[in-house]
């Protein structure tokens, strides 16, 4: 009986493959359309950034221009090289913030996954509940509180509020639960290792792949954040690239002569993230419980 069903199914599938030739390529074609849609603006700005101000309006859209290096030089000279400062600030905010965030998430996730203690669920729910609090409720009071202690418009005002990340804690907990065998911790305890020692020498090394994922997500989130630095900062020497680009756009939107500067700035501010993203492909996961078993 089973053999008959399988044979029918097989025949049907073979039949489908012949009759449905156009259908066979449809999924691939749809996905490629999606890919083109997603790549097009990036590809366009790559070309636009190579054009001199004159070429931008006169040459065909998809023809490379001759002004790329002039554009870059002009951008780096803009207001005494403020673009460099924006890039450096972004690196401080995103790099430093993501490092601290990963550390806090990993330690919290490990504690929540591997210890049984009163209040465990309450603390977990409280920390995770933070994800439901809209950023808008936080940004204004955070600004006011920072200005009361004289730290608004400082690097700290952008760095500190972005360390706690509910999703990071959630991922770390899931990863710790899957990647750290209880038996290993017990063996360590029998050997007389302290809890702090167990965390730094046994647990955290096992959590490194998960921590890379958390770092990447947080790095991108901080790099892309606009609202918080926009509200906190007034001094353009402390701007990250997002806010810097916005001020560049505000200054140049009505002056077509500045368009090439803005487009080059946009290109240079997305290149590092795209590079990071392509080189770290295998760490971009949203489900860490399956990744740990491999």
């Amino acid at each position, binding site marked *: 009986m089973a053999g008959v069903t399988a044979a029918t199914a097989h025949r049907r599938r073979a039949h489908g493959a012949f009759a449905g030739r156009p259908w066979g390529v449809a999924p*691939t074609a*749809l996905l490629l359309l999606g890919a083109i849609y997603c790549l097009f603006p*990036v590809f*366009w700005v790559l070309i636009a950034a190579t054009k001199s101000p004159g070429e931008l309006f006169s040459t065909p859209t998809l023809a490379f221009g001759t002004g790329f290096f002039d554009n870059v030089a002009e951008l780096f000279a803009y207001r005494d090289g403020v673009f460099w400062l924006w890039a450096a600030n972004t690196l401080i905010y995103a790099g430093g913030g993501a490092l601290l965030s990963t550390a806090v998430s990993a330690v919290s996730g490990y504690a929540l996954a591997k210890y049984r203690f009163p209040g465990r669920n309450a603390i977990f729910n409280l920390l995770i509940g933070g994800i439901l609090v809209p950023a808008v409720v936080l940004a204004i009071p955070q600004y006011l*509180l920072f200005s009361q202690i004289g730290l608004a418009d400082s690097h700290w005002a952008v760095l500190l509020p972005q360390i*706690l990340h509910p999703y990071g804690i959630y991922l770390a907990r899931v990863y710790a639960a899957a990647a750290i065998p209880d038996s290993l911790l017990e063996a360590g305890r029998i050997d007389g290792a302290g809890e702090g020692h167990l965390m730094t020498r046994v647990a955290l090394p096992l959590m490194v792949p998960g921590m890379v994922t958390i770092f990447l997500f947080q790095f991108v989130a901080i790099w892309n954040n606009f609202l918080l630095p926009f509200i906190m900062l007034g001094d353009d020497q402390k701007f990250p690239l*997002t806010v810097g*680009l916005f001020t560049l756009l505000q200054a140049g939107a009505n002056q077509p002569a500045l368009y090439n500067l803005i487009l080059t700035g946009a290109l240079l501010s997305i290149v590092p993230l795209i590079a990071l993203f392509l080189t770290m492909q295998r760490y971009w996961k949203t489900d860490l419980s399956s990744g740990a078993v491999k």
Partner: protein
Amino acid sequence: MRRPGRGAWPYLFLTPAIVLFTLFLAVPIAYTVYLAMHRTRVSGLGLGKGARREVFVGFDNFAAALADAELWQGWLRVLGYGALVLVVMLGLALLFALLLDSARVRLARFSRIAIFLPYAVPGVAATLLWGFLYLPSLSPLKAVLDVDYLGATTVTYSMANVAVWGGTGFNMLVLYTALRAIPRDLYEAARLDGASEVQIALRVKIPMLTPAIVLTTVFSIIATIQVFTEPTALRPLTNTISSTWSPLMKVYRDAFVTGDLYSAAATSIVIAAISLFLSFGFLRVVRDRAFREG
């Protein structure tokens, strides 16, 4: 000296997270609530010390926010924009995830990476790229569809396109990851029963994906209601976007341009309440339906 027992360690590990939670979440929330229930009263001519006092006004600011016509217009705009973004973005994310998961697709890796790529582009940069693509003087899109992409009615669609472009990849990845976790033998069983790939997608995969679809929808609702970056970054390029286009933009204007922190706090709580209401409402609808069907 006695070493602390194992009981104290998890709390020690969780201390950084709890301190950050208190400083950057709990205190700001409490402060917002406080501000939302107060207002400055000016007595006499408003001169001299003590002429301006902060007084408790209960729910007056909330009543004012709910009666504010400008804010309502913002809500209507965001409702239209949000519905469009949610349906198209999540629809495409689901379609792409299902296509990637079907065995017949070629170049799947390339498409997956390309569609996820916009996730690495900051919202400001994405808006800037598309904004320039919409500009009549530069637009290669004119060749596709000759309309004013930044006109009074078209601007909503143009902005929705930026959000769809930026958000589809991440949601696709979440759904795709969830799809990969479904046991393959379920499909084999359906295939033996003669189900086609499309039937398997509709009858097996989508029902199994429900939790992931619900999760992505809730987070997309929260993010969409708080739309700020796209309209703010598009403003320099067109005069069709007012400074109060979205509710969050009005909060920003109240707080930092008009200097009315009390109204801003009340409005931000209203925004938070509405986004939580819609998220939980959505969860409820989904749960009720699941129960009825089960």
